[in-house]
């Protein structure tokens, strides 16, 4: 019933990816995390196409952490495709971005984002926020029936 992946992290900046991975592991060492680096890969992973064709029919990750500013297809477009497809509409998708811009926040919620987290500049804060996030989405929250 549980899939093979807990968290799909979509992050193009390798430094940010490293911090986020470390912070996620700090929250839960056993977490199974997949990392993709652009919007196209994110969509292929979720829909089991292209480079991730072997994932076709695989159970969806428990939560997607999605950066906004991504190469090729940006985070907002990835979000729209996930929320626009009946197969993936229920997939909890959390925006994880450095943008605190009103229009970004608004656009993400309008597109169906489940949550919007601003990446803090302080590493300690990032660890605290991601710890809460892991506890909420992977322990507290009841996932959509797969």
């Amino acid at each position, binding site marked *: 019933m549980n899939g093979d992946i807990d968290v799909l992290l979509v992050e193009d*900046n390798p*430094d*940010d990816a*490293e*911090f986020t991975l*470390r912070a996620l592991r700090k929250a839960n060492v056993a977490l199974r995390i997949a990392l993709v680096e652009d919007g196209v890969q994110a969509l292929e992973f979720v829909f089991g196409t292209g480079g991730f064709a072997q994932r076709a029919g695989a159970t969806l990750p428990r939560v997607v952490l999605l950066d906004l*500013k991504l190469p090729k297809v940006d985070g907002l477009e990835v979000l729209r495709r996930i929320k626009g497809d009946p197969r993936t509409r229920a997939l909890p998708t959390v925006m994880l971005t*450095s*943008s*605190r*811009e009103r229009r970004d926040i608004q656009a993400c919620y309008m597109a169906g984002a489940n949550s919007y987290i601003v*990446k*803090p*500049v*302080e*590493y*300690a804060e*990032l660890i605290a926020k991601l710890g809460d996030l892991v506890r909420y989405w992977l322990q507290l929250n009841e996932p959509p029936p797969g």
Partner: protein
Amino acid sequence: MATTALSSRRYRALTAMDFLFRLLKRVSPRVAALDAGNAELREQVQRLEAANAALEGTNAMLEGRVSDSGVEAGRARDQLQQEILDRRRTEQSLRYSETLLRRLHEDLEDHITERTRELTRTIGELESFSYSISHDLRAPLRAINGFAAILREEHAERLDADGDALLMKIETNAAKMAQLIDGLLDFSRLARAESMSTEVDMEALARAVAAELAGDDAGRRAAIEIAALPKVVGDEPMLRQVWMNLLSNALKFSAPATVARIVVSGETGDGEAVFHVRDNGVGFDMAYAEKLFGVFNRLHRADEFPGVGVGLALTRRIVLRHGGRIWAESRPGEGAAFHFALPVAAGRRGGPAA
């Protein structure tokens, strides 16, 4: 019965006489008036006859002049034609001016539309500029902070005291850069913020800000006295920021004073409300008074007083946006006085921020 008949006949005769008498009385003034009118008419006839004679004389004279008049009439006709021509020309030039004016007006409107478009574009660029600052500058900063934190956490045992001190410097500088970026963002956000004008109770606002600051370390050691302040029309959140910046500045630069004393006062006069914030802090040299309000300009070393130098620049921007002015006076060691004036009636005037 007979007596009655007689008397009734007499009565009728009397009544008829009475009627005649009254009629006569009424008619006679009219007859008199008619007589007078007759005399007047006769006089008029006489006058007319005289006039007629005179006219006849004139006629004869005119007949003699007819030949001359023909020439004059021709001249008058020419003059009239000239006048008509002139008038037509005037009309034409008037119509031309009208067209010109209309075209100028259209040009002006086009110009305004174009400038508005340019301005909108500039605002858009500013917006994407601040957007890219928030994204692009914060990312490397997060990396510096993050790696420094990991170094401290996971490699602490391999760091000696010197290494630890160096790491601390990296962290302090990263924190300062974060403040600078936030300050810049605040600044550009203000430039494109829509302002909402309402009546603002400046005294209540200043008191609320003072109460908030009283919770801070510096605030606890200071006495902030606030006198009665005039009300103004303006954007309350922005004006709140003005008080926040001026009062926290006063507190900050009063820190070395044994008893920090800050006095806030204000009055209305000459179409503006003027406010004063005076402190007994370190003050500043008037030679640098102009530099006070520039972005990232500081008059003190960062290790003397914290801050990145955005507060007063922001304060000035807000005051200018309200159509007001701000200035400061001081002497080193003798405290500082900051003054700002806001127009009283024209608080809605949201001129372009300088």
